[in-house]
């Protein structure tokens, strides 16, 4: 039985097309990522699959059960962590967890092992009201609550949003370890590099799935030769490259600038000397493998300027 399958899901909010005929299949035990910025449609899709929102059209099944007709059965078997903080602000950390555990007829102690990696980071604050936690601490509590009943299928809507780099790594380690328990996970994120930690991903933008693939497969499909360029002053490098007549794309990446050219074949030394002739010194240039973020920006490059509907 396929844990998650969706076909031609359409969701409109007024004139906004939140989901535009989206189809998806996630296999048992897979860690599947929905990658895209806020507004891509990730939340709507997750809510529909989690039986919390009715699609305008299309069908979806969780563990072979229809999300509309069998929503009650589904809800007992899934865990869902919403993107917007939805815990009880007036309850303490511990009270929130106990509350969720009791809804599902379990206890914190029973499944402590499953959540301990994340929960132990907020355990020192277990007597604090949830409303007073920092942004990232709230996320950790919400995830703990979603896992407390050991679900078969876990939906996580941007669990790493606002979460610091160390905890993000812990969280992904934890998601990978849940795979051992054969929990199927659908997780959304706007952090492109987190795609590498998934088995497969769908890149989403404006209600559409742009590509579904393994991270390696996606990267292998990046068409153009990609160069990383840097000098002491990346702001200047960016400006000069954007002015360069052959430039196709110019994006800062940390202290490097990623560059593709309009021409099919190029000599990197030519770019180097162009920059050096335009008072940029110490230019380094090297050809590199694309990152998921490069792939994403190349697939969405037409949409960078917002067009009012």
């Amino acid at each position, binding site marked *: 039985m396929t844990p998650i399958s969706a076909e031609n899901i359409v969701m409109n909010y007024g004139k906004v097309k939140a989901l535009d005929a989206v189809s998806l299949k996630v296999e048992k035990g897979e860690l599947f990522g929905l990658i895209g910025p806020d507004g891509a449609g990730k939340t709507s899709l997750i809510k529909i699959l989690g039986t919390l929102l009715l699609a305008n059209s299309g069908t979806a099944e969780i563990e072979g059960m229809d999300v509309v007709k069998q929503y009650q059965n589904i809800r007992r078997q899934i865990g869902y962590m919403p993107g917007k903080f939805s815990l009880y602000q007036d309850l303490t950390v511990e009270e929130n967890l106990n509350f969720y555990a009791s809804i599902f007829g379990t206890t914190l102690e029973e499944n402590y092992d499953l959540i301990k990696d994340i929960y132990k980071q907020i355990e020192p604050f277990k007597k604090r009201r949830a409303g007073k936690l920092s*942004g990232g601490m709230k996320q950790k509590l919400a995830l703990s609550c979603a896992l407390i009943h050991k679900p078969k299928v876990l939906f996580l809507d941007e669990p790493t949003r*606002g979460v610091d*780099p160390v905890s993000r790594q812990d969280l992904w380690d934890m998601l990978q370890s849940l795979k051992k328990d054969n929990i199927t996970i659908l997780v959304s994120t706007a952090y492109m590099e987190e795609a590498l930690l998934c088995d497969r991903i769908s890149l989403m933008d404006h209600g559409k799935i742009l590509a579904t693939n393994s991270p390696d497969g996606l990267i292998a499909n990046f068409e153009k030769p990609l160069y990383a360029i840097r000098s002491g002053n990346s702001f200047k490098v960016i400006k000069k490259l954007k002015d360069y007549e052959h430039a196709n794309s110019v994006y800062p990446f940390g202290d490097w600038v990623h560059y593709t050219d309009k021409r099919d074949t190029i000599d990197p030394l030519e770019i180097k000397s162009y920059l050096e002739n335009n008072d940029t010194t110490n230019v380094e240039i090297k050809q590199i493998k694309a990152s998921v973020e490069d792939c994403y920006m190349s697939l969405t490059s037409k949409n960078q300027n917002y067009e009012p509907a």
Partner: protein
Amino acid sequence: MSQPEKAYSISVENLTKKFDDFVAVDKITFNVKKGEIFGFLGANGAGKTTAMRMLIGVLEPTSGKGEVAGFDIFKNSRKLKKHIGYMSQKFSLYDDLTAKENMRFFGGIYGLTNKEIRNRTKELLTHFGMEHIEKERVSSLPLGWKQKLAFCTALMHKPDVVFLDEPTSGVDPSIRRQFWEMIYETAEGGVTVLVTTHNMDEAEYCHRISMMVAGKMITVDTPQNLKDKYKLETMGEVFLHLARGYEKEHAITAS
């Protein structure tokens, strides 16, 4: 009346905030130069937002000193607010208003005249290539454009210092880069920018960064110096190194 030219536009000494017994910000000391982009990094709950709220004069410090744009954050917090801009970690615009109406609203709060508001709105939207969203309702804009707009509203009254609390989290990768270009241009115009982010690519774009762990500011330096110091390639690695190192009981100094 012109303020005497100060060496720093933010200077903080032993700034501390306690909530009951809990020390959220623990004697932090740092200075930020005019026109500098200063990154405020740290783990969740480290105290970044709390520190920022003291610096913008909305949260009273427990102890310590702070001066922002020439105003004492204790004694002059009312005047201070006219000279700074702030984008909160939670979203800070009115969804039902259009882009332009939001600008007008915030301009009004800062006491600008109608004419000033009109001119400034036009100036900012044109400068940042956003004229075409002027009549759009905020609710219909993608997050990245909302954030660009929120940044404009924070600049309405020509503040000396702007505070940006996680302005780009969840934003489309190319719009995120446009946002940073806005930050750069603003800083080049002499405005001081203090920004928090959990995106380590963005840490590289800051002139200097500070790192907070459990209320303490454990490092202030340029990204390049930090990478050189720990012989690491990226700020992501530096962050992990510092945060994990600190966790392992900050006794052992790196050998």
